């Protein structure tokens, strides 16, 4: 996946996620601070694969990552997982 394509798709996803967080401010209360949020699509596997590689890079730099998975099965529409660097 090209960088331009990844940016565009991630912009769309993160925009939807940030609007969700604004409407549901309790969402991130139990999550670590100073973390980078990476959004994952429910259907776009190529984007998810590129974002997985990006997460590996962030973890290797010592950045805490919050993985936000788009999921219609969840009541909120998103599932959050915190990943800490080893």
């Amino acid at each position, binding site marked *: 996946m090209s960088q331009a394509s990844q940016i565009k798709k*991630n*912009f769309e996803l*993160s925009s939807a996620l940030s609007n969700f967080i*604004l409407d549901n*401010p309790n969402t991130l209360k139990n999550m670590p601070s100073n973390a*980078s949020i990476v959004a994952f699509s429910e259907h776009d596997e190529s984007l998810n694969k590129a974002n997985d590689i*990006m997460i590996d890079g962030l973890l290797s730099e010592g950045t805490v990552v919050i993985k936000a998975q788009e999921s219609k099965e969840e009541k909120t529409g998103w599932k959050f997982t915190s990943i800490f660097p080893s």
Partner: protein
Amino acid sequence: MSSKRFRRKRSHKRPSSMVNMLRAIKESASAKVKVREIRHTYQLTETDRISYVYQASEDDTVVEVTCVSYELLVADKWYTAVYYDNCHGGILHRHVQLSIEKNLDMPNIYGVKQKGTSKELLTWANNDLRRRYPNYRTGFFRKNRQYIKDHRIDI
């Protein structure tokens, strides 16, 4: 006979009910709303990210857009290509980065949403970045072309 000798001095004392009312108004005006700063960072690629910093009150109402920014990684350092804030007077405005070398930016309000709650302004800034980030990205590299060339930075 002069009327001044027999003029009664008016009492300048306010009724106690008015004193209490004025005290209550003064106390409510000086009571500060407790706010907390909230920060999110969304990673778009290894070299692009969006950051949100805003102030929210105790009931999670957005009261100020501190900074909504689109940032680029150049030579292992993050630079802000453009950011929005409404810290001064509540008016949302855009800052466009002009120079990495001198850390200069240019504020403007062209096409920026002016009216609305802080939450609406925050959402608007988010959507504007989503629509126009290619322009901001291209503009950033064009404005700093010489600096990038002089320092032989790979982009």
